[in-house]
């Protein structure tokens, strides 16, 4: 029985990891990462590692995605992707 649960959790983790990589949009990726954290926590619980599961839940599915979302918010606050030199600090170009 435990074996079946572990296999299911392993497949979920593998799937979530793949999805997290293939989602190229950082916001969606953050959400998938959060889900990956959940599946990992589930797997660790089945592997009799409650301590690690708790950490993974706190870090992997809360803090890391939160930091990514805050970064995205900072980076995207201004419309346009930049790169035209107008938003670079002056005096750097020759």
């Amino acid at each position, binding site marked *: 029985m435990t074996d079946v649960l572990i296999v299911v959790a392993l497949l979920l983790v593998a799937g979530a990891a793949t999805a997290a990589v293939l989602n190229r949009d950082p916001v969606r990726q953050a959400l998938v990462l959060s889900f990956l954290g959940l599946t990992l926590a589930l797997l660790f619980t089945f592997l009799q590692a*409650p*301590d690690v*599961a*708790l*950490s993974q839940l*706190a*870090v992997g599915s*809360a*803090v890391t995605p*939160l*930091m990514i979302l*805050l*970064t995205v*918010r*900072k980076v995207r*606050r*201004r419309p346009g992707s930049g790169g035209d030199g*107008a*938003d670079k*600090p002056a005096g750097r170009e020759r």
Partner: protein
Amino acid sequence: MSSRVRLWVFLVGAAGFAALFAAACFDLPAFGTVPHPYGVRAVHAALSHHTANVIASVNFDLRAFDTLGEESILFSAVIGTVVLLRQARDEHRKDPEPATVHPPVRRFALLTLPFALLVGLYVIAHGQVSPGGGFQGGVVTATALHLLYIAADYRALERVRPLTLYEIGEAAGEAAYVITGFAAVLAGSAFLTNVLPFGTLATLSSGGTAMVLNAAVGLEVTSGIVVLLARFLDQAVEIEDPGEDDGSPRHTGGGGGNGDDEREPA
């Protein structure tokens, strides 16, 4: 390299890596069959020091030196983030807009907040008895504080979050860990030796110095994660890029570098 070449370099490398790793996997002992000598010794050692949670014993007693390194990683990453996310010389600081929060959201967050804080502190305190400990509890506590951002707005959060205090708390946690180690040296034992009485198995006061180290880690992690998240929030909400200007009132960072992130608490 063009992206095609890059992909090919990766694919060739990945094929080699996969072959190597797969070969190793089939030479590994079958999943779930073989006990490890170190693991067995660790269980005995933990029980000899009356620590019910063997993982806490490994982290805070047997391999407490690893945890010292780990806490220092967190410690330096927090200093590093504070330094990296400082307000640059050419940036401005803008007061965030007061946000309107839907009442149900506010009620939910305010209800959850004390509960989450309590859970966090409970998890820290019971580290040597049940799953959890300074690290897990610290993260929960720190994240819980940020529910206030959802409940009210950024300014409410800033008021209950005197960052200076948390930065000092982080350093104090790190210092407490090292000093506990030094205390054992002064007592004539090796660094980080468990010199306190071990107490009774499965009670809150069991584990000797493991308990003290656990508390130090709890303090450091709580403060550290609060500071980390604060820095990211600060960047996301308050600091404007050089040249960014939308006409709102702002403060310039001055010549010095870092902005005054901590206003006087109201």
